[in-house]
Every structure is written in structure tokens, then in C-alpha cells.
């Protein structure tokens, strides 16, 4: 019989980023006992790295006047290319202003309205009203009709996460950091908690709870070249999918951020373009107005990323040892603005590229950034397939973002979903009863012990985890990128099929003692390849272009056949994913033209 420590709580939250902590706070405020598990100390979470801001239609700034949840709703649905759930988008836009104000009440130092006239970078004059002085202000972000992105200089994620964590500490919520959930305990109908591995000692533990919440963020690291933190490996998604009964929604919807810095792929926030930065090509020509005369650099991310790659393909990219890139130019914003409002950008340029953006151009290229897909949940945040399992934030496909997320809507989603779904979780948990047998716990721990034993003894083979990983990264980056086509996607699927078989034969060289890091990677690799497989297979099947998913061989959105969401299951024992589909919920806004991007360009060219 296994020997392990058991921890029990009402609510177990896996992941201590903004979404996880906000949900934990909601549950704790209702008097529930909560435990949070985190790979790292909570303040190191990837949420902290978000620079740009959080969308909420406060309408305080001069360029935000007249904003409302309705306008935010339309922007979000258009941004999603009609791929989102409209009932979810409605819940979200109505609650975003409350969430921003509550974060202010808790201590976030949001930038405030300063009354008076200002000249924008393009020469327009605006005037902030004295009546609004001191209220929370907003900046411009891509794909939004109004200035709606609330921010604290360029450390928005940092300030949100630190303040949220201060509330977690204040409420005395238990956090077990350096702990990794490696399996979900369930009986095929209900979730009972997780088996976790202590990353200090390597020991296995069991956490049981009435409600289990997956808030582990996205899977950027599947791509290698990603703006994501290195802990973003999709672990919550693959342990949920591994149950065989929980599907992942829209895994092929992968967002590329237009401005990853070359070659470290660290993100240069959209705030740089929102504040008036230009994109230039090898001739220093500002090319975005040629493609997108209205929104220019501020069309939505999928559109800007594609226009950049299109321009590079036409031969206007700047050659470099790391491949072709373009330039981001913020020099005209001036030293003062750059060193205060865009200070993090300035620091990143200096520290990681050795350049000074006050005087130099910044080398940038579209880089994997966000996963719209994730654990498919209903509007109350409960995962399809398992009672008592919830998912929120980037790990979830709630589905607010559809096929393309607007900048500033991810931070907003973490806090809003944490707040709204946190309430739902509390409600559910209060009424829930559960009875878990020791036999079931032993069985799940036993499976993990056996896996670890197999890896350490090289029982199944001696494939190198790092090699498989690099090949997986390369496969996705090369064949499942910004421009996709049937032939390349088929190549990716074949390659990932092979890599999946190899991932079952991993063995380790390190001996696997204690909190061995190679063992940690080896425990993840199979799940990561599964996620990669779902992305490629979903993309191959979807013979249309929608949002970030752009098929060169099917360049148009096809609402007749594809106004539906992919659900990727991985049945227990199967060697490939099983794809099913469900309709997208349209409640208010029927599919139409986004007003920017290729479809609109074709439409207006047709008119002319």
C-alpha cells in the first residue's frame, strides 16, 4: 500500500496566477476552506508578466467617453471572429468594470485621469475633463472602438498579481507552492482532487476537495519561440484531458503576438503601439497603413501578425541570424514617455537586446503568445465531463475569446472569471457532498508511482525527454504557425503521431532522486505532445480561416460549415485525439464583417 500525505479542503485551486487566486478569494470569502497549489511562489506566476492592461468600459478618459458594456461586447465578439460564446461575453463585459474598481479598492495603483489638453502622436488634440480627474484612465489597444484598457504604467499584471496575492495572504488562504498536480483523481463521473508532486522533495501527495479548479494558464511553451514564461506548459489542460472524459475546446486557436523581440522572444507590449509606436520594414517604410488604412498598427492581433508575415514574405523583412524580422519604432514618443510609461519595454530592450529604444529601432516578429483553447467549460466554469471540476483563465475555454483574443481581455478575463466563476464554485461547493474511497486514492497514486518507477528504471525505453521536446517545438513552429495549409498540417500531424509514440518510451539519465528536474520534465512530456497533437489535428480538420486560425488553402471564414467549436477528447488508451464539434452560442450579434482584416479589405476592394 502506498504511503502518502493527504490534504483535504472544500476547494482546491491548481494555479496561483490571477484567475486561480481570484477564485480562491471568492470561495474563502464565503467561508470555505481553500488550498492553492502552485508550481512557483504565487507572485512569480505568469500573470505578473502582463504589461499592457485590463479592459473595462469605465469610459473615464477623453477617448473612452461613451463607452459601455455594449460597446465592449461588440468589440469582443468581432475580435473573436464570432467564435466566442456570446452569453459568456455578456457576463464578462458587465462585470469587468466592477472587477477593475474592486482591484482599485484592494490597492492597485491604476493610472488616473489628468485633466487638460493633450496632443496625441498623430497630431490630434484631446482634452480630459476636470470632472473625471482622478478616476481610472485607459489606453488604446488593438481592436477596440474606445480607449478601454486600464493600466498601471507597464506593470499592470505585476500590480494586479501582487495586490490579489495580498488579499490571499490577508484571508489566510493556504498556498502550497513548488507543488505540481500530475493527475486528476476521478471515477469517470466526478472529480475528487489531484495527485501532486512536491517539487522540493519529489514526494507524492494527495489533495482531495469537493471542487477542484484548474487555473494553470496557457501552453505557450509547446512552441518554444513564445512570449510565455517557461512554466506555461499546459499541465492543467493535459491532466484534465487525460481523464478521457474532459474535452479541450478550440486547441487550434493559437494567438501570435505581433511584437516578440528577436531573438529572446520576450514580449514588447501592445502598449507600445497603443501609445503610438509604428511598424517599419527594411526600407524603414511604415507599412501597416497600406494594409489597414483605418486601424493601422492597431487592428486586432491576428490581423497585424498576418500582415507582418505577409510583408516579410513580399521581401521587406530585415535579414538577421535569427531569421527575418521587422522594426518597431517608438523613438518619436520621446525619451520621457519611453522611460516612464514604457519603462519595462525600455528595460527589456536594454537588457535582452542591448539596444536603447529612445534612439534605436526594436527588432520584432510575431511570436506565439496566447492559447484561446483550453479545458472546455460551461458558462458557470464547470468542465464538460466531470462533476466538481472547474477551469478558469487561460487554461479554460470558457469561451470568451473565440478564435482571437483582444489585448487587455486576458487580464480582464482572469480577474472577472475568477470573481464570477469563484462565486459559482462557492455556490456549488456549499451544496456538494462527496465521498471518496481510499481505494480510489491508492489506485491513482499507484499509477503515478508506477510511471515514475518506469521513467527512472528506463523500463519503457530511454528516449531523451529534451530531444522529443525540441522536435515538438519545431514541428509546431514550422507547420502550425500563422499561415497554415493542409499539406503542412498533415506533416505536423504525422510527426506528432511519431513523437507521441516516442514520448511513451522516455527514460531518464539523472536517477530521478528527490525533486529531480529531469523527472519533472519527463512526467510532462507525454501530455505536452498530446496537446500539440490536438492543436495540429484541430487545425488540419478546420477547413476555413477564422481569427488566428488562417488557412492559405481556405482563406475565408465559413460560417455555413464552421460556426462551431472543436472539442478534442483523448480516450483512455487511444493513440490519437478524437475530434467532435458543438455549435457556437449566438445570442445578440449575428456573424458579420469585423471592419478590419482581409475579409473587409476584400469587401471594400469589391465595392471600389
Amino acid at each position: 500500500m502506498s504511503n502518502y500525505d493527504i490534504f483535504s479542503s472544500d476547494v482546491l485551486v491548481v494555479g496561483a496566477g490571477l484567475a486561480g487566486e481570484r477564485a480562491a478569494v471568492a470561495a474563502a470569502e464565503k467561508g470555505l476552506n481553500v488550498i492553492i497549489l502552485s508550481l512557483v511562489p504565487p507572485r512569480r506566476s505568469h500573470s505578473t508578466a502582463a504589461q499592457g492592461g485590463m479592459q473595462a468600459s469605465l469610459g473615464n478618459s477623453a477617448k473612452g467617453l461613451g463607452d459601455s458594456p455594449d460597446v465592449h461586447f461588440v468589440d469582443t465578439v468581432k475580435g473573436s471572429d464570432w467564435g466566442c460564446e456570446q452569453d459568456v461575453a455578456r457576463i464578462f463585459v458587465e462585470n469587468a468594470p466592477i472587477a477593475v474598481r474592486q482591484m482599485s479598492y484592494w490597492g492597485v495603483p491604476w493610472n488616473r485621469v489628468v485633466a487638460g489638453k493633450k496632443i496625441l502622436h498623430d497630431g490630434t488634440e484631446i482634452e480630459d475633463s476636470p470632472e473625471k480627474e482622478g478616476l481610472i484612465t485607459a489606453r488604446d489597444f488593438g481592436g477596440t472602438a474606445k480607449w478601454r484598457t486600464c493600466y498601471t504604467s507597464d506593470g499592470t499584471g505585476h500590480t494586479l498579481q501582487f495586490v490579489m496575492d495580498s488579499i490571499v495572504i490577508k484571508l489566510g488562504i493556504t498556498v502550497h507552492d513548488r507543488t505540481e498536480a500530475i493527475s486528476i483523481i476521478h471515477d469517470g463521473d466526478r472529480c475528487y482532487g489531484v495527485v501532486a508532486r512536491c517539487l522540493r522533495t519529489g514526494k507524492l501527495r494527495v489533495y482531495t476537495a469537493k471542487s477542484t479548479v484548474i487555473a494553470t494558464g496557457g501552453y505557450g511553451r509547446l512552441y518554444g519561440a513564445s512570449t510565455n514564461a517557461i512554466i506555461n506548459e499546459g499541465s492543467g489542460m493535459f491532466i484534465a484531458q487525460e481523464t478521457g472524459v474532459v474535452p479541450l475546446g478550440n486547441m487550434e486557436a493559437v494567438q501570435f503576438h505581433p511584437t516578440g523581440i528577436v531573438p529572446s522572444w520576450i514580449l514588447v507590449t501592445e502598449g507600445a503601439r497603443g501609445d503610438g509606436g509604428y511598424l517599419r520594414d527594411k526600407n524603414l517604410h511604415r507599412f501597416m497603413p497600406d494594409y489597414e488604412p483605418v486601424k493601422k498598427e492597431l487592428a486586432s492581433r491576428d490581423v497585424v501578425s498576418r500582415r507582418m508575415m505577409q510583408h516579410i514574405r513580399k521581401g521587406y523583412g530585415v535579414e538577421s541570424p535569427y531569421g527575418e524580422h521587422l522594426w518597431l519604432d517608438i523613438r518619436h514618443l520621446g525619451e520621457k514617455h519611453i522611460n516612464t510609461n514604457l519603462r519595462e519595454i525600455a528595460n527589456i530592450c536594454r537588457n535582452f537586446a542591448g539596444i536603447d529604444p529612445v534612439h534605436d529601432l526594436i527588432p520584432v516578429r510575431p511570436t506565439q503568445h496566447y492559447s484561446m483553447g483550453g479545458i472546455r467549460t460551461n458558462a458557470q466554469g464547470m468542465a464538460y465531463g466531470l462533476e466538481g471540476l472547474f477551469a478558469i483563465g487561460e487554461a479554460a475555454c470558457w469561451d470568451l475569446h473565440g478564435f482571437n483574443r483582444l489585448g487587455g481581455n486576458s487580464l480582464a478575463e482572469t480577474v472577472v472569471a475568477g470573481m464570477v466563476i469563484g462565486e459559482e464554485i462557492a455556490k456549488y461547493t456549499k451544496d456538494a457532498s462527496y465521498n471518496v474511497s481510499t481505494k480510489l486514492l491508492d489506485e491513482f497514486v499507484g499509477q503515478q508511482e508506477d510511471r515514475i518507477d518506469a521513467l527512472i528504471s528506463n523500463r519503457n525505453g530511454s528516449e531523451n525527454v529534451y530531444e522529443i521536446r525540441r522536435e515538438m517545438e519545431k514541428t509546431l513552429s514550422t507547420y502550425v504557425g500563422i499561415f497554415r495549409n493542409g499539406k503542412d498540417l498533415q506533416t505536423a500531424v504525422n510527426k506528432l503521431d511519431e513523437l507521441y509514440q516516442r514520448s511513451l518510451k522516455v527514460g531518464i539519465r539523472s536517477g530521478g532522486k528527490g525533486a529531480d528536474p529531469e523527472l519533472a520534465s519527463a512526467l510532462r512530456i507525454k501530455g505536452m505532445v498530446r496537446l500539440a497533437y490536438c492543436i495540429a489535428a484541430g487545425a488540419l480538420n478546420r477547413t476555413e480561416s477564422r481569427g488566428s486560425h488562417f488557412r492559405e488553402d481556405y482563406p475565408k471564414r465559413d460560417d455555413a460549415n464552421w460556426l462551431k467549436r472543436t472539442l478534442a477528447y483523448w480516450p483512455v488508451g487511444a493513440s490519437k485525439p478524437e475530434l467532435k464539434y458543438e455549435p457556437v452560442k449566438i445570442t445578440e450579434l449575428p456573424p458579420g464583417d469585423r471592419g478590419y482584416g482581409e475579409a473587409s479589405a476584400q469587401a471594400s476592394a469589391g465595392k471600389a
Partner: protein
Amino acid sequence: MSNRLLTFNIFRYDPNTPEIEPKMQKFQVEEEERMTLFIVLNKIREEQDPTLKFDFVCRAAICGSCAMLVNGKPTLACKTLTKDLPNETTLMPLPAFKLLGDLSVDTGTWFREMSIKTEAWVHTDKVFDPKAEEERMSNDQALAIYEAERCIECGCCIAGCATVNIRPDFLGAAGINRVARFMLDPRDERTEQEYFEVVGSDDGVFGCVGLMACDDNCPIGIPLQGQLSYVRRKMAVAGWRR
């Protein structure tokens, strides 16, 4: 350009296996353009020794995970470019924190305890009203709070602090900066006397001997000595009034 062959002497010890003595281990890596210690350490782990423990999360100087002693100086490994290093470099874990193994230390627990000790959250009797407009604040005030809020809790200031070595309960520059952040915040309704209880001692602001290493070592340039004098002034006055 012919690439340098860089030598790294790395501290090795796992507290889970105390029977194996601590040692320094030598690794060699060929230098590449724009190489950082993030790249070096991952290369070593993936190609030479898979047991090597170290911490990175954001790899972009935002999260504070990867602080270590690079040739004796506490700094962030992610933003240390090899071009600024000599041919031979020594890497040691940050002192003052509990060692978890090799270059990995437990800064998380230290900072959490510090937050609990200083009650580092906004104290207010006001109740949040979801229907009300937010309370106003001047933008300058918001920016001043953000200046102090920028601390990423990497621990470099603590590791380089002489007082920490004498007084293990010393809050250190990061702790005092955290207090300053809440003192500056009009939403926090604590009185100076209440703050005095937290930091008006030798484990707080009066323990600092002013060697300035915290200021020198802060990888993101927070004026820590300035924050210390701000809190000290306020506490001196508060102490006077007691």
C-alpha cells in the same frame, strides 16, 4: 568571431541527501551571440547534467525567480549577458534564504513571511460597493505607489545585506520598501503608530547600518535607501510622539 569557451564553477548540494558533501562543479559551454545565463544553465542541464537545479520563470526580469550570486554579486541570471562575464564564472545560490538544491533557494517562503509580518495589504474599514464609482486618486500619487510596488521580490537586496547576517529577523530593504508602499497609499488607513509596531525596531528600520548594498544590488533600480529614509523619518516622528 571565434566563440569563447566559457567555464562555469557551479555550487552543488542537495539538502535531501546530506550524506553527499557540497562541492563546486566545473562545466564548459561555448559562447553564442546574445547569450544569457538562462541559456547557459538550460544548456548545461539538457546536455551535460540533468540533475542541476535552478529557477527561472519569466526569463525576462519581471518575476524575480532567478536571483543568484554571479561571481559573488547577487543579481538576476536571466538578464546577465555572457558578454559581460570573464572566461571563468562562479555561480552560487543566494545566501540568507533556505537552500533547496544547487542554485535554487526558497525566496517564496521568506517573502510570504515578510508579507504576513508587515501585514502587507490595504487596511481599511470601508466596504466595497460594486455599484459605486471608484475613489479618486491623483495620478502622481498612483505613480508614486507604483514606484514602490515595482519590487519583484527577487531577494538580491536581502542576500547582499550585512544586517541580515546579524539579525535573521531583519525585514531588509524589500520589507521596508513594502511598508513604504502601503504608507504612501491613501487607501491604507493604518496610523503611524500602527506602522511603528511593525517596523519601529531593530528588526525594522532602525536595524539598517546604511552600507547601501541593497541599493547597489537591486536589479530593477528601486531607490531602496530613499524608501528606507522615508519610512525612518516617519517612524522617528511616530516614536517621538509615543
